[in-house]
C-alpha cells in the first residue's frame, strides 16, 4: 500500500529520520514503536506531506509519488490522526469534518448534506458523535472519533494514527480497536504509532521498531513478544512491571472533606468529595476522562478560583482553603500537571528557566539584594542536577523546552517537582505519551518518593498504571467517589465498571 524508502530528515542538529524504510502491506494494521524522539511521528508526517523529506522516496501502490503537501496525501487516499489533535476547538464537529472538502457550492455551504454524510459514516464505522457539538465541549475520546471521521470523510484508504490510545480509557481503547478491526475488514490499511506493547500485540499484523531515527527492526506480530519489542526499542532489557515493596503508610498528610468545585457555567465537576492521603502511600484516582479528575487536582493545587471551591482541604492539619498556588507550594505540595504543554512548561524558555518555575522567587534561586536577583550559577547547578538525575536528553540546559521530545519534557517537569522534596505530590497522567523506558524510570521514581515518606495522589487514565502503582484506589464518576478498592485484589473489570457505571 505505502512504502517509505530511505527517508531522511533533519531538524537543525537533530537527525530525526535517518534512511528510514517502512513497508506497509495493504489491508493490514502496521504498528510503529520506538522511544520518545525515535522519529516515528516525523516519518509519518512526511508520509502525510506535512514535512518534506531531505532524501528518500515514497511509493503508493508500487509507484513513486511526490507528496508535497497534505492536499497531495489526501488526494492519494491517505488520512492521518495526529499525536496532538488537529481540530479547531471553537468550531462544531461537522465544520471540522467537512473543512477543506465542503459539500455544496462555493457560494453556499450545504450543512444538511454534510450532516447526512457524517451520520452515514458514523453509522457505518460505529463512530457515534453529535455533528453539532463544539469540539471544545467533547471528551478526548470523542475528539478522536472526529479525527477518524475526518479521514474517512475524505475517503482515506490508508489511516495513519499517531499515538491514538494515549488519551483513551481502557473501555474506549477496546471500542476503538473494534472500530479499527472493522476498518481492516473493509479493506482499509492502518498504521498505528503507540508506546503500549500490549496494544501492539493485540492489534497489529506487523511491527516496525525505530530508535534514534533509524529503523532497527521489522517483525511479524505473531512471532514476537513484548519483551523482545522492548529490547529492540530501548536496546536493553526493560522491566515491564513495577517492582513495588509493601507501603508503610504514616500520618495523614492530605485531608479532603466535602470538596466541591463549581464551574462558571454552574456545573459541578467535583461533587462533595471526601478522602485522605497518608505519608508513604500512593492513592490512585481512576476515572473516565472528564469525570472531575482535572478539577480535583487543580483545586488541590490552588489553581481554581477560591470562590468556586467549597469544602475544606488541609495539609498536616492546617487548612489550605483560599491559599494560592505559591503558598501551597511553600507548604510542601508539588504538582505534576496532566498537560505539560499547557501548564507544566514555558516552551520558548530554556531548560534552566523551566527548572525554577514555582521556586524562582525565593532562596536559593534568588540572592541579595532583596532576594530580587536571580542567581544564575545556582539555577544552572540545579538544572544540570535535574538533567543528570532524571536523564533528560539531550542534556543541554540552554535548549528551549520545545526542542525536547514529549518524554524528556515530562522527565524535566517531574525532576523539577521532585526537587522540592514535597510532603504531598499531586501527579496527573505522569506517563502520557512517554516511552516504556521512561515509564519504567518514572514509576520507579514515584515509588521511591513514596518510600521516602511522601504522600502521593496519582491520577491516571491508564488503568494498568494506577492499578499497579497505587496502594489504595479511588474511582471517580461524575465528580463523586464511586468507590474505593484495593488494587492488589480488585480486577480491571470491576474497576472498569465502577468507572463507567458509577456503582
Amino acid at each position, binding site marked *: 500500500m505505502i512504502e517509505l524508502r530511505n527517508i531522511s530528515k533533519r*531538524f537543525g542538529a537533530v537527525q530525526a529520520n535517518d534512511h528510514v524504510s517502512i513497508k506497509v502491506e495493504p489491508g493490514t494494521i502496521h504498528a510503529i514503536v520506538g522511544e520518545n524522539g525515535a522519529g516515528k511521528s516525523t516519518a509519518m508526517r512526511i508520509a*502525510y506531506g*506535512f*514535512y*518534506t523529506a531531505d532524501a528518500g522516496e515514497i511509493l503508493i501502490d508500487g509507484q513513486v509519488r511526490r507528496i508535497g*503537501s*497534505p*492536499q497531495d*496525501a*489526501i488526494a492519494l487516499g491517505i488520512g*492521518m490522526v*495526529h499525536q496532538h489533535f*488537529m*481540530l*479547531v*476547538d*471553537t*468550531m462544531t464537529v461537522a*465544520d*471540522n469534518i*467537512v*473543512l*477543506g*472538502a*465542503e459539500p*455544496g457550492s*462555493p*457560494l*453556499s*455551504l450545504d450543512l444538511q448534506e454534510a450532516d447526512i454524510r457524517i451520520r452515514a459514516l458514523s453509522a457505518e464505522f460505529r463512530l457515534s458523535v453529535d455533528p453539532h457539538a463544539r469540539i471544545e465541549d467533547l471528551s478526548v475520546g470523542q475528539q478522536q472519533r472526529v479525527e477518524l471521521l*475526518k479521514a474517512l470523510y*475524505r475517503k482515506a484508504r490508508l489511516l495513519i494514527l499517531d499515538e491514538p490510545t494515549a488519551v483513551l480509557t481502557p473501555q474506549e481503547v477496546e471500542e476503538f480497536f473494534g472500530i479499527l478491526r472493522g476498518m481492516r475488514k473493509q479493506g482499509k490499511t492502518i498504521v498505528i504509532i503507540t508506546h503500549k506493547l500490549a496494544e501492539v500485540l493485540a492489534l497489529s499484523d506487523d511491527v516496525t521498531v525505530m530508535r534514534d531515527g533509524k529503523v532497527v527492526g521489522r517483525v511479524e506480530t505473531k512471532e514476537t513478544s513484548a519483551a523482545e519489542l522492548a529490547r529492540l526499542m530501548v536496546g536493553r532489557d526493560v522491566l515491564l512491571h513495577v517492582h513495588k515493596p509493601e507501603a508503610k503508610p504514616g500520618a495523614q498528610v492530605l485531608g479532603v472533606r466535602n470538596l466541591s468545585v463549581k464551574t462558571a457555567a454552574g456545573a459541578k465537576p467535583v461533587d462533595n468529595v471526601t478522602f485522605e492521603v497518608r505519608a508513604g502511600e500512593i492513592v490512585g484516582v481512576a476515572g473516565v476522562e472528564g469525570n472531575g479528575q482535572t478539577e480535583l487536582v487543580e483545586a488541590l493545587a490552588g489553581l481554581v478560583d477560591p470562590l468556586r471551591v467549597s469544602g475544606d482541604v488541609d495539609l498536616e492539619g492546617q487548612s489550605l482553603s483560599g491559599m494560592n498556588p505559591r503558598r501551597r507550594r511553600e507548604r510542601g505540595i508539588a504538582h505534576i500537571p496532566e498537560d505539560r504543554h499547557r501548564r507544566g512548561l514555558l516552551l520558548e524558555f530554556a531548560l534552566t528557566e523551566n527548572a525554577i518555575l514555582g521556586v524562582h522567587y525565593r532562596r536559593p534561586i534568588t540572592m541579595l539584594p532583596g532576594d530580587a536577583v536571580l542567581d544564575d550559577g545556582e539555577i544552572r547547578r540545579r538544572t544540570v542536577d535535574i538533567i543528570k538525575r532524571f536523564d533528560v536528553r539531550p542534556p543541554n540546559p540552554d535548549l528551549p523546552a520545545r526542542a525536547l521530545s514529549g518524554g524528556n519534557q515530562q522527565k524535566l517537569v517531574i525532576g523539577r517537582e521532585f526537587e522540592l522534596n514535597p510532603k504531598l505530590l499531586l501527579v496527573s497522567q505522569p506517563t502520557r505519551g512517554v516511552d516504556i523506558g521512561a515509564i519504567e524510570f518514572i514509576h520507579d521514581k514515584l515509588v521511591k518518593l513514596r518510600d521516602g515518606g511522601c504522600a502521593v495522589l496519582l491520577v491516571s487514565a491508564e488503568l494498568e498504571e494506577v492499578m499497579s502503582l497505587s496502594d489504595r484506589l479511588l474511582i471517580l464518576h461524575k465528580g463523586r467517589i464511586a468507590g474505593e478498592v484495593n488494587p492488589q485484589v480488585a480486577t480491571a473489570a470491576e474497576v472498569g465498571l465502577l468507572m463507567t457505571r458509577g456503582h
Partner: protein
Amino acid sequence: MGEILNISLIWSAVRLSTPLVLAALGGMFAERAGVINIALEGMMLAGAFTAAAVTYTTGSPWIGLTAGVAAGLAIAWVHAVASIRYRADQVVTGTAINILMIGVPGFLSGALFLSSGSTPQIPKEHLVPWTPIVMAFAAVPISWYVLYRTPFGLRLRAVGENPEAADAAGIRVAAVRYIGVLLSGAFAALGGAYLSIGQSSLFTRNMTSGRGFIALAALIFGKWRPVQTMFACLFFGFTEAITIRMQGVVKLPSGEDIPVQFIQMVPYLLTIVVLAGFIGHSRPPRALGRPYQKER
C-alpha cells in the same frame, strides 16, 4: 435637548459610522484569518487619497472609487507579502504602512497638484454621498453570510483559529490569509474613499485622524463578528454625533459651557465603561498575530 436629539442626529450618526463600518469589516476579514491589521488607518488613507485624486482628475466618482479600492488592495498586498510570505511581525508591518501612507499622499499630491498633502476640492456633482453608506450597511449581512455560510468563510475562520489543523485538512493557509488581508484592504480603502469623496470633498493630510484605530477598537468591541462590529461602529458614530451637538448646548450647573475637551472625551470614556461593564472579555482568533510556518 431638542437641539441634540433630532432626526438629523440619526443621519449624522450613520454618516460618521460608515467609514468605521467599512474599515472594521475589512479588519475582520484580515484578523479572522489570523493577520493583525493595525494598518487600517493607512489603508483608509490610501483609499481616501486615490479616490479623491482620481475623481478630481477624471470627474467620475465611480472610477475614483474603483481606483481607491485598487490602491487599498495594493497596500494590503504589501502587508500580506511581508507578514504572510516573509513572516514579518504583523504589528510592525502595519505600523510601517501607516507611516508610509502619511508620506505617499503627501508626495503624490506634490507631484500631481503642486500641493503638500491634499487634493483640490471636488465639485459637488462628482461626489458620492450615499453609495458608500449603502455599500457599508449592505456589506454587513453579506460578510456575515460569507463568514458563516460559505466554504471560504469556514476556511477563513479555521485558518485564523488553528492554521495547523487547516493545513492538515488540506487547506492552503497562506492563500486564504492573502485573500483575507486583500479583502481588508479593499474595505478599508472604501471607507477612506467615503471620507474624501462622500462625506467631504477633498483629501487632506492624515484626514482619517485615528478612525482606523477606532475601527480596530470597534472590531475587538464587536468580538470580531460582523453584526456586533457594526453595532460597535454605530455606537461610536452615535456618541460622536451626539457630542457634536452637545458642544455649546449642554451647560454646567454654573451656566457656563462644558469645556469642549471634556465633551470630546465622551465617546472614548463611554467605550471604556461599556467594555468593562457589559462586554467584558472578547477572545481574539487563536492564531491572531502568529505567522504560520512549519519546518518543511
